[in-house]
């Protein structure tokens, strides 16, 4: 179906839904690279008018990637909850924006429509929203998940402790873990990106963090961010796997480029559930996504990168994840050129994920070939803190010495806690107190005992 809008006597036509969505998207380099962006600002404005008039019901009848050829589309259509959709089925996309921003909209009201929303609907409305709209709407949505800690409670924000080391050196990794814990981080997960993609190496790292957890009776979960097939093999070999990690994307072809299928993800989830290692919950999946991943695999199929990203969230929500992390600035300038585009994308991803019912975190980050720096990360961190992000990354000094990019640091987490009064996951906060790292008010209160207990953990590790 074609759409059009006329501005000052010029009529702009959009041949189908995916073209309309692409033309209405705020400018970003990835959509230019794909050759699907609006040719001018005025064409973009016209597309937004046409999109605002589109009935929400239209999305039920036109898929951006055909149902027959794509299993992500089949997942979206087959899982759509028509009853949950009822409350908003009479609206246009433009009216849906106002529905979201209406001050009557409670956390419960927003959660109740979540399963009635297709990712394309959410992507569409986000294109009509300003940054402040994305922040305001997201700040009203709470998504709470549990494994050994509770993540996403109102007034809290968690941190993934990311202790990467370029050669997976166990002492080097533990040194960063201890540093992070002493700065009060690690309540989302201790998650290691391994340098080696071997199963044996992953198992050694899993054992390392699990030993640390047991030695200090810490209410933490660990994860080695290796390919899902490696994790399945590690489980088979009896390794202490808490969470299953996988990068996912918004089309079947893009997922194939990651070497995954929906059934493989299900198999991995079932294997991890069978271990039943969570103490207060069984949310055991950890997904990472990022705008541009489908295009980089030449698997965007004419769909704009932000809509592709929202479709990845439809994949994620089929597996009840503990954590979903949009790694917003990692992919590079060909997809998000500069800090303006990274900041916008981070807010879009957080909003879209939350509205679709996901426990969204954000790796607020940039690479050294992108036009961005730490000042821009401060800005996005502050905005996402206000928006109620579930978790952020904690990398020593914001400098990941294995993946070679810059993210947020333990200090950054302390900053945002201070300015916004955000607490840690309650189980973790209590543990930090028991370890005499913080006092009852959450202030650092190191004692000699703290160091005498913690520091040997790094030196005594068997290599």
């Amino acid at each position, binding site marked *: 179906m074609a759409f059009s809008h006329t501005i000052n006597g010029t009529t702009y036509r959009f041949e189908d839904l995916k073209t309309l969505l692409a033309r209405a998207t705020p400018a970003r380099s990835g959509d230019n690279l794909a050759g699907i962006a609006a040719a001018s600002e005025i064409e973009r404005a016209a597309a937004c008018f046409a999109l605002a008039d589109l009935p929400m019901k239209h999305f039920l009848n036109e898929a951006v990637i055909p149902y027959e050829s794509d299993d992500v589309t089949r997942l979206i259509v087959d899982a759509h909850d028509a009853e949950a959709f009822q409350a908003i089925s009479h609206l246009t996309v433009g009216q849906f924006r106002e529905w979201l921003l209406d001050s009557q909209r409670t956390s419960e009201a927003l959660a109740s429509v979540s399963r009635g929303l297709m990712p394309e609907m959410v992507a569409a409305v986000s294109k009509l929203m300003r940054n402040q709209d994305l922040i305001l709407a997201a700040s009203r949505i709470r998504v709470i998940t549990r494994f050994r800690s509770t993540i996403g409670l109102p007034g809290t924000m968690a941190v993934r402790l990311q202790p990467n080391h370029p050669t997976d050196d166990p002492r080097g990794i533990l040194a*960063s873990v201890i540093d992070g814990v002493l700065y009060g981080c690690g309540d989302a997960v201790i998650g290691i990106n391994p340098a080696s993609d071997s199963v044996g190496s992953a198992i050694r790292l899993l054992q390392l963090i699990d030993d640390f957890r047991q030695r200090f009776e810490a209410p933490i979960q660990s994860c080695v961010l290796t390919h899902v097939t490696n994790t399945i093999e590690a489980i088979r070999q009896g390794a202490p796997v808490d969470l299953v990690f996988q990068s996912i994307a918004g089309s079947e072809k893009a997922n194939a480029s990651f070497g995954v299928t929906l059934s493989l993800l299900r198999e991995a989830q079932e294997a991890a559930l069978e271990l039943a290692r969570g103490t207060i919950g069984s949310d055991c999946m950890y997904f990472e996504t990022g705008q541009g991943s489908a295009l980089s695999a030449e698997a965007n199929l004419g769909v704009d990168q932000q809509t592709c990203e929202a479709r990845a969230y439809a994949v994620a929500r089929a597996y009840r994840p503990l954590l979903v992390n949009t790694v917003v600035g990692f992919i590079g300038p060909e997809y998000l050129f500069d800090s303006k585009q990274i900041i916008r994308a981070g807010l879009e991803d957080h909003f879209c994920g939350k509205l679709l019912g996901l426990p969204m975190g954000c790796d607020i980050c940039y690479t050294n070939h992108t036009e961005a720096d730490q000042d821009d990360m401060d800005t996005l961190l502050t905005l996402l803190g206000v928006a109620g992000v579930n978790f952020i990354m904690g990398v020593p000094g914001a400098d990941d010495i294995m993946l070679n990019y810059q993210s947020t640091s333990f200090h950054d987490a302390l900053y945002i806690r201070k300015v916004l009064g955000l607490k840690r996951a309650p189980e973790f906060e209590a543990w930090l107190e028991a370890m005499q790292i913080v006092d009852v008010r959450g202030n650092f209160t190191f004692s000699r005992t703290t160091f005498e207990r913690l520091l040997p953990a790094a030196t005594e590790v068997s290599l």
Partner: protein
Amino acid sequence: MSEDISRTEPWHVLTQWTSARIAMGRVGSSLPTKAVMEFNADHALARDAVYASLDLAEMQEQFAQAGFTTLVARSRAQSRSEYLRRPDLGRSLDPVCAAELQLKNIEESGMLSVVVADGLSALAPRLHAAPLLKQLCEGLGHWKLDSVVLATQARVALGDEIGELRGAEAVLVLIGERPGLRSSDSLGAYLTYRPRVGRMDSERNCISNIRPVGLGYEQAAFRLKHLLERARILGATGVSLKDESDDLPALQ
């Protein structure tokens, strides 16, 4: 700044185990001034590495001295700025080079083509490609080494087209990785079996962070030889080929 108001952290001893920025100290919740300035200087170095170019004459000389013959190639990206915005151009050969690289009379010879590429840091191949390749050549077994192709404004997938033109059984791309703040010279090695245009990233195996203070030449060459051997048995690289070289005795 000799009188820092920030304290030295009591766990400073842990810095012996990692080059990560740990035990940095704090004033309130914020970083000490010196740490902020050091970070900014390192960011400046990394930014400069991205824009450095590969000196072909110097590289040819370096490889000749190490006993390798070389060819040159460039992608269709005309400048660094275009390279950064248009990865598609960096994955595709300039047509002139394609004609020059075309190998006549391709035989089923078990040939390994090696592409040495600038990627996002020309510093990495300049420092590490030749020494790594020397290590790799020792005990390469049944693989026959092709001339080394020096490629500029190149992405990893450029190796697919080059390998296909050379009729290679496998292509190894040694490429400058995106510079980090403390590693502006990291070399990545990507192995693709039966290279041809259109191979997906899941059909490659990668070894990253090759440099003396990261993964050393000897270890990297050992892993690559292991991958080459397994790739030939399996008839494929990528997610179906697990890197189990960690578990082999030679690395213990």
